[in-house]
């Protein structure tokens, strides 16, 4: 059964999702649902130590255990030159450790057995003799001369990985020297993990008869995975089929290639049967790539009347044991230089140093376009502190410093060209909708009574949709994306794209784009992603890039089809092509609206009645290289009340006004905003992965790494303004990450606004009740 959705002209409408009928029936097909004949199960033995030499590994007992078919160690992989693999950041990472381990839960050995339980039993029989080594957890201590060198495999004998900078140092320093006001603040963005509900996993299925390797994997970037597997293993790329089936959430966690994937492939190649590896939640949090972990210092130079002049940012980035950021090659700190945000600074200078520690590798962009969340949080947090120091309302300071709408396209001091925006309009809508003036009055009354209420603002600008190809690549592969559309004789369409959704609703939104462009109904179009044998090459879904890149490719590919259809229509209408007009639903003869043919008529003719000189068929492929990134933005306002007795923060209201350009499906956009705000809320108040001095992970499960439930999560209010992207074929910008990028600052600013009477300017996330409670006690509040 399906609800009838014969909607024509579906763009901009809240079309119900085409992917849902299977998912609400429990008929989705996630990677762990793949059950193949003769399939074996893989489990991985992990290190209990954060830093230790491996003296000896004895696998004999495991090999003799019931059901065990294969035991693999780093030594076994080294013989195949597979003990190490490349990361997406140009570093290398151990697949299975050979001589030493560099983080707790690092992969040490693997067992393949008939059942998962047997494999789990057997890994416990592997004996490893470790010699513990001194552990470095703190990236600042990692830089001290006496710190042990963690990466002995590297030529550079230092825990310092790279230094990166953007902007103009001299110009910035000149302004700082003259500035009447300088505000400086250290801000930490804690280590977090995307932790989607479905952990990572794969099934490697090598067929000895055909020589083909089918690799099912829960992947946000199946083509990149195919190329990475070919590069790593030397297996011929045309004999690798990567299938990313339904993906149970990604948020950046499913972009990288993980050691378990390589081990599963090796096992299947050796054994000639399918091998499944599904990680546990603990393995997911404690070994797959983390996000953030930035130690940031920002300084803003300003005038006394609140004009912000220059921004200086220095950051230490903890990358863990292996530099495995999923960042474009030229941008080791991602798009962090968007840190000037929505403000018209005269100059800015940003520098970041990447550091190795004894922690898991990373960091991925967790619902974020490559370090944009860190940047957004930093600038929005520090702008609030500037307002505090100047005794200005944070709204007034923002309005005084916004990039004005007539300045677009706007070149930022760090070199980005913002496509479009009207920041003042969006903020003013937010203020009006939330009733800002009344809230400030209420706050004043409450303060007079000793109650703690806070209002937090965040007016962020994102940068999403990588390419363009001239600047952006991953593993050397240029960042474009693609669509292929086939119109069948009966006027039905199958479209395939190079991206891979994980809940964003591409099967619906891309069908809306294509149906709109071709004058068909939404039900006439099926969208397929995730199979590298059928989909055109693409870089995948992350960094809010799907609509900016593959969405553009879908629109332009459909227009390519329409161009050919026009020629066939001219033939059917027996007129010159120049006399054919398209009205969004049909081709007709100029000046004779009664004579028309629909796309369905043309589709049939493309296979049955093609004029001489025109290729039969109606198909097209489009590879889209975006001319620029897109710059969605928003104005978010949080209202919080603080319980003086417990320090608990209650988010009473939260309004998100987003501007993501033209909207394809408002229902899906709103859903994405709800979800992103919830993750932003979780980061502000709950999620953190701390390590003790010995490098033990203190939150390797969902009892200690706190993910919000329906009881924790506030009610969200949403609205939008629409400022189309001038360079995108349908004027869209991308939205999935904006709420996660923009909201943490709004929450934290609201808490600090509530605590303003005590002169507290900053608290690092997550804002646990005890942190607030401690501050209140320090200020004699004991109620």
């Amino acid at each position, binding site marked *: *059964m399906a*609800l009838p959705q014969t909607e024509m002209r579906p763009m901009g409408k809240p079309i*119900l*999702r085409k*992917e*849902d*009928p299977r*998912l*609400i*029936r*429990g*008929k*989705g*097909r*996630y990677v*762990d*649902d793949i*059950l193949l004949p003769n399939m074996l199960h893989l489990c991985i033995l992990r290190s209990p130590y954060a830093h230790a030499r491996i003296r000896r590994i004895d696998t004999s007992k495991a090999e003799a255990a019931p059901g065990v078919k294969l035991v693999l160690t780093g030594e076994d992989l080294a013989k195949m030159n597979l003990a190490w693999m490349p990361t997406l950041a140009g570093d290398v990472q151990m697949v299975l450790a050979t001589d030493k381990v560099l983080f707790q839960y690092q992969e040490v050995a693997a067992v393949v057995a008939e059942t*998962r*339980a047997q494999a789990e039993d057997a890994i416990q029989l592997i004996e490893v003799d470790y010699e513990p080594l001194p552990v470095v957890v703190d990236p600042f201590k990692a830089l001290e001369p006496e710190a042990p060198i963690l990466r002995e495999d590297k030529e550079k004998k230092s825990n310092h990985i790279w230094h990166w900078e953007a902007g103009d140092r001299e110009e910035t320093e000149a302004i700082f020297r003259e500035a009447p006001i300088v505000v400086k603040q250290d801000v930490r963005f804690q280590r977090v993990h995307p*932790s*989607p*509900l*479905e*952990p990572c996993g794969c099934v490697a299925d090598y067929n000895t008869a055909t020589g083909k390797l089918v690799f099912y994997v829960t992947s946000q970037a199946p083509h990149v995975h195919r190329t990475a597997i070919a590069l790593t293993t030397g297996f011929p790329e045309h004999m690798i089929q990567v299938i990313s089936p*339904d*993906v*149970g*959430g*990604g*948020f950046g966690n499913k972009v990288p290639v993980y050691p378990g994937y390589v081990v599963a492939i090796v096992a299947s190649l050796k054994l000639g049967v399918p091998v499944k590896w599904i990680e*546990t*939640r*603990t393995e997911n949090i404690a070994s797959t790539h983390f996000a953030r972990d930035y130690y940031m210092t920002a300084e803003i130079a300003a005038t006394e009347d609140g004009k912000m002049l220059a921004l200086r940012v220095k950051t230490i980035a903890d990358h863990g044991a292996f530099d495995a950021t999923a960042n474009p090659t030229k941008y080791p700190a991602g798009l962090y230089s968007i840190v000037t945000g929505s403000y018209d600074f005269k100059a800015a200078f940003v520098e970041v140093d990447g550091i190795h520690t004894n922690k898991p590798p990373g960091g991925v962009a967790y619902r974020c376009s490559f370090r944009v969340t860190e940047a957004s949080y930093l600038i929005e947090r520090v702008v609030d502190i500037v307002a505090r120091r100047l005794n200005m309302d944070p709204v007034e300071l923002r309005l005084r410093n916004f990039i004005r709408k007539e300045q677009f396209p706007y070149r930022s001091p760090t070199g980005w060209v913002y496509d479009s925006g009207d920041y003042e309009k969006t903020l003013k809508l937010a203020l009006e909708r939330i009733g800002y003036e009344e809230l400030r009055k209420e706050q004043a009354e409450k303060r007079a009574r000793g109650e703690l209420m806070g209002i937090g603002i965040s007016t962020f600008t994102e940068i999403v949709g990588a390419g363009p190809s001239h600047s952006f690549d991953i593993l050397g592969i240029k960042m474009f994306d693609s669509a292929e559309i086939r119109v069948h004789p009966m006027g039905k369409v199958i479209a395939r794209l190079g991206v891979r959704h*994980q*809940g*964003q*609703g591409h099967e619906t939104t891309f069908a809306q784009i294509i149906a709109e462009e071709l004058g068909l109904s939404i039900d006439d179009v099926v969208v397929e992603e995730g199979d590298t044998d059928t989909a055109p090459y693409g870089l995948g879904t992350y960094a809010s890039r799907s609509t900016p890149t593959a969405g553009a490719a879908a629109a332009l590919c459909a227009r390519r089809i329409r161009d050919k259809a026009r020629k066939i229509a001219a033939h059917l209408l027996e007129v010159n092509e120049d006399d054919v007009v398209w009205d969004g639903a049909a081709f007709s003869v100029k000046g004779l609206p009664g004579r028309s043919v629909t796309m369905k008529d043309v589709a049939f003719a493309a296979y049955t009645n093609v004029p001489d000189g025109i290729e039969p068929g109606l198909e097209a492929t489009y590879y889209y290289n975006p001319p620029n990134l897109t710059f969605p933005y928003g104005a978010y306002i949080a209202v919080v009340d603080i319980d003086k007795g417990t320090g608990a923060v209650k988010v009473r209201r939260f309004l998100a006004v987003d501007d993501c350009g033209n909207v394809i499906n408002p*229902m*899906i956009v*709103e*859903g*994405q905003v*709800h*979800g*992103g*705000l*919830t*993750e932003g809320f979780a980061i502000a108040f709950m999620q953190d992965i701390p390590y003790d001095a010995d490098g033990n992970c203190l939150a390797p*499960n*969902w*009892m200690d790494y706190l*993910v919000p*439930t*329906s*009881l924790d*999560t506030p*009610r*969200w209010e949403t609205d939008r303004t629409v400022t189309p992207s001038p360079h995108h074929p349908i004027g869209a910008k991308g939205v999935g990450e904006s709420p996660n990028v923009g909201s943490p600052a709004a929450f934290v600013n609201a808490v600090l606004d509530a605590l303003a009477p005590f002169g507290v300017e900053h608290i690092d996330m997550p804002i646990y009740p005890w942190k607030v409670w401690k501050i209140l006690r320090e200020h004699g509040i004991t109620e």
Partner: protein
Amino acid sequence: MKIRVKVNGKPYEADVEPRTLLAYFLRETLKLTGTHIGCDTTTCGACTVLLDGKAVKSCTILAVQADGREVMTVEGLEKDGQLHPLQAAFWEEHALHCGYCTPGMLMASYALLQENPMPTEEEIRFGLSGNVCRCTGYMNIVKAVQSAARKLSVESREAVGEVATSGTAAD
């Protein structure tokens, strides 16, 4: 160990290892893969099924504990090709993104509405607080449960003749 268990109304007999969890029995032995596994700590609720009508996390129940009892999974919600009102409401209210939590959410919601046919928003949020969704932010899930509760209430009133089935002013 031999167990007999009725799943979605169908009787099954199987020989299981005593340590087999109900979730794995459903997924791997019966091939009912709609029941998902998301954590190892009974936190996420993706594996929620009904055991004798009560919502349980099937990753924390042994298959042998289901011996002689009745299990209902997400695959048992649809009847005669008709989606259960909860399934339809999850679709209509956009209460799922990736869909991985959805089967567990549906079963927890089903159990909630059995106990409390017209829950308030607070009661729904409390009733579903053992189920984690990483995508939606829960608002649309709450809306879907409310919408299904209204539909089910009309249906049950129709069944006892309180509401004219062809009337225009139902509900």
